[in-house]
């Protein structure tokens, strides 16, 4: 059986990246390198208000004083930040009335990605704001959303139309001083999404954005800001795929979520950037800062993520539970294969009374990959009766991979209960045997067990995403080239 296992694991390692294609669209690029001029260029190009440029420059000056962090359990050659192009946009920024006017090549890209842009209008009821290399191209259901007073647009559009909101909320959850990559993003971010749900509104649609890195040698620096006013609800989805490239691509995004009193935000993401080839060549560096704040009482934010891609993932979607009785959740499945490296986890910072948080993290590593969970649960002195439960399990699919757990628990008051538990093991021989004797083949059995293992997290995804996520898991693990 061991031989069969080995064979299967090899197959697992050999499944190819399904979304490795490259769209040839003319680009409008900033010159290579990063100086104050680059930042002025980006800001001018996007016709930004004065305060934005100042913010960018402050961030840039701060960034220059910082050193790249080295504590993560990942290894990569040093990045030359002066050798990157910090801005690229499709040349003609299209403003289409209908989808027929959209560049057909672009539509084809979306077809390959499986985003049914047209069909979604009728069938899925999903408004899609697709970001193609930093500038939003197509938008749907704007009118439906507008009726409810919901703002869902690209970040640059929001800067033009709602500068006050941006000024009020941007950088309040992740200030540019937060870390090396957030400073970099704050200085050079190109575009992103902005969501604003007014008081008492329950967003009728699942909001969704698809990001793609497209041009060679450009880092994509998006910035997402979600503001949910008192008593509102929104579910936001984000998914990523990237084409095959030889040079590593840098991706340093920022996502900020603000939930006011009684508001609820559900943020789901499927990350499938190109992980590099089997020798670990190429692939995307994904250094992302994501943080939400439960500002008001009884507010609630949940992060759900399925991480299957990227050569290197450095990502800790965090939550600050500031409002009393607020709650936060983090559900994650991280799959690494070949030479992928993932250092991912979460931070739950309990500040308010009776705050609650749940962390469920499932790591699956195969090939020669390394998969780490790194998490912090902190309860302050005032966070009385706060409660946390963390569970992070790792599944090892080969003898060359690594699975690591680095939890940090800081508890500062007597009434909090913080629990952490984790297990690391390989697929149980008993379970495999059971499946096999029921007539399921080895491949099917492993798929079944792994899917069952990740079920707890997958079930938290919105319906549309769950299907894609399951497909991704299959591609990564069952060796069935899709």
């Amino acid at each position: 059986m061991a031989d069969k296992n080995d064979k299967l694991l090899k197959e697992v390692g050999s499944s190819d990246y399904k979304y490795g294609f490259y769209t040839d669209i003319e680009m409008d690029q900033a010159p290579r390198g990063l100086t104050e001029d680059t930042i002025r260029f980006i800001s001018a190009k996007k016709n930004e208000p004065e305060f934005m440029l100042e913010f960018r420059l402050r961030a840039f000056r701060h960034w220059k004083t910082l050193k790249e962090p080295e504590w993560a359990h990942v290894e990569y050659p040093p990045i030359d930040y002066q050798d990157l192009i910090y801005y690229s946009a499709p040349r003609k920024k299209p403003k289409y009335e209908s989808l027929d006017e959209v560049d057909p090549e672009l539509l084809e890209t979306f077809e390959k990605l499986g985003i049914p842009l047209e069909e979604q209008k009728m069938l899925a009821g999903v408004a899609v704001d697709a970001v193609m290399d930093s500038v939003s191209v197509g938008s749907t259901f704007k009118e439906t959303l507008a009726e409810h007073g919901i703002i869902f647009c690209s970040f640059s559009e929001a800067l033009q139309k709602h500068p006050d909101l941006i000024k009020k909320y941007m950088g309040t959850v992740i200030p540019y001083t937060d870390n090396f990559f957030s400073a970099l993003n704050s200085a050079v971010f190109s575009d992103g999404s902005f969501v604003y749900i007014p008081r008492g509104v329950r967003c009728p649609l699942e909001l969704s954005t698809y990001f793609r890195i497209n041009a060679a040698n450009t880092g994509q620096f998006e910035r997402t800001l979600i503001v949910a006013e008192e008593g509102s609800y929104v579910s936001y989805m984000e998914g990523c795929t990237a084409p095959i490239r030889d040079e590593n691509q840098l991706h340093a995004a920022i996502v900020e979520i603000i939930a006011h009193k009684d508001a609820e935000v559900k943020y789901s993401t499927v990350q499938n950037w190109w992980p590099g080839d089997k020798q670990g060549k190429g692939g995307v560096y994904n250094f992302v800062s994501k943080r939400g704040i439960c500002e008001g009482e009884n507010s609630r934010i949940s992060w759900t993520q399925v991480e299957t891609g990227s050569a290197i993932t450095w990502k800790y979607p965090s939550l600050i539970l500031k409002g009393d009785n607020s709650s936060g959740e983090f559900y994650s499945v991280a799959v690494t294969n070949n030479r992928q490296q993932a250092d991912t986890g979460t931070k739950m910072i309990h500040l308010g009374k009776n705050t609650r948080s749940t962390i469920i993290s499932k790591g699956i590593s195969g090939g020669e990959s390394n998969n780490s969970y790194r998490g912090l649960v902190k309860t302050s002195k005032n966070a009385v009766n706060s409660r946390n439960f963390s569970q992070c399990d790792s599944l090892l699919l080969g003898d060359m991979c690594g699975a690591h757990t680095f939890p940090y628990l800081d508890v500062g008051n007597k009434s909090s209960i913080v629990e952490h538990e984790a297990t690391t093991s390989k697929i149980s021989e008993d379970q495999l045997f059971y499946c096999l004797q029921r007539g399921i083949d080895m491949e099917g059995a492993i798929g079944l067990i792994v899917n069952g293992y990740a079920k707890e997290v997958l079930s938290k995804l919105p319906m549309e995403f769950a299907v894609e996520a399951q497909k991704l898991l299959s591609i990564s693990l069952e060796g069935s080239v899709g």
Partner: protein
Amino acid sequence: MKERLIELYNREKDVIRGSSSPLVNRLRQHAFTRFRDKGFPGTNLESWRFTDLTPLLNTEFEINLANRFGNIDTEKLFTCDVYDLDTFSITILNGWFVHKYAPLSKLSDGTIIGSLAKAMEVYPELLDQYIGRAAKPDNYEMAALNTAFFQDGLFIYVPEGVKVNKPIQLINIVDSPNPVFLQPRHILIAGKGSEITLVHCDHSLTHNVSFTNTVMEVFAEEDARVDHYKIQNKGRNSALVTTTFIRQEKNSKVTTNIVTLNGGFTRNTIDNEISDKGCVSDHYGLYLVDSNQHVDNQINIDHASPGSLSNQLYKGILDDKAKAVFSGKVLVRRHSQQTEAHQNNNNILLTDDAKVNTQPHLEIYADDVKCSHGATVGQLDPEAMFYIRSRGLCERSARQLMMIAFASEVVDKIEIEALRKRIHSMVEKRLKGELSICDQCVLHCNSKEPTTFNIDLSKL
């Protein structure tokens, strides 16, 4: 402090070296270079993030490079208050081995017990085979400092097949009117198939400031069995940094059990390297701390070979403004298949000012392993409390009963009956708030200074 130590080393090199072998002196020089370059560990280091040495280092410590005690009546100095405990007792006073009869004894079965300084003189070849083989001064700053400066400590050699019938009791006493900085080094070698139990008690006779930086090296050879108990019951102003390096060979079994009852600043590091298959390594710890105490337990287990089992269980109860840090790391190297490693840290906080930082880390590179870790921080289970109270106990008794039960899980692992009973009663007293009173009494029996009591009546 760093500059003073560097200057002292350069000036007194010959005194420090004493009769050490050339190999030991090479180790010293290497460790000294390392200390000179890196200095004391700061909170910018991951392993020292929650434990800050800076306030300690501001004290003007005295460093004694000569043994001023020699031959004294150890029984007059300190009498162990565990009455039924039948042990072979050894005393280290202010970092120096003190003795009533001889500094180094060789028993009829070949076991050698005594002063490390003397052993370096008498058995240099034996020592050279072991000393520095387990310690990793490159990875542990405080061990580097100790390696550069150590002069004396305990040396135990148990030859092949010998089962030492009585536990060895090491009593480490600090008694000095001035603040002292001590660097004792202990070496324990358990030969093939041998068995030894070591009870290591840390005491202080006064409440004076002191800083002890101990390094211990334990070698458990094939089929050897080592039980190491450590009872830390120090004064409020003492600082204790202990780094224990354990190296295990095939089928050996090592158990450590650290009970921290009192102590101003305590940091225990265990570095356990499992270099062959079939090893069992169990590490237990219990800390019951109050006032401004700081206790930090760091455990690194390196499964460098397949088919071994390791287990960690640390429990703590924190009162007042006490702070506890636990950092357990299990490293399972590639090819270390069939490893089983478990790790658990449970804490109870009694006040809002107490603080716990716990980091149960796992780093696993092999697939056929069973590893788990867990950590909890919380308070007493309200349902269990309700049950006990429904049986007619008052809240205070119910609470004490539950805390004692919580602590018992660790105490019950002690295999020496007299010691277990004693620790049980000490834990019980400690949890009732009586131990500090009792201790002050014991501590001051031999002291010329007037006794002052600082009794928190609310705890009675």
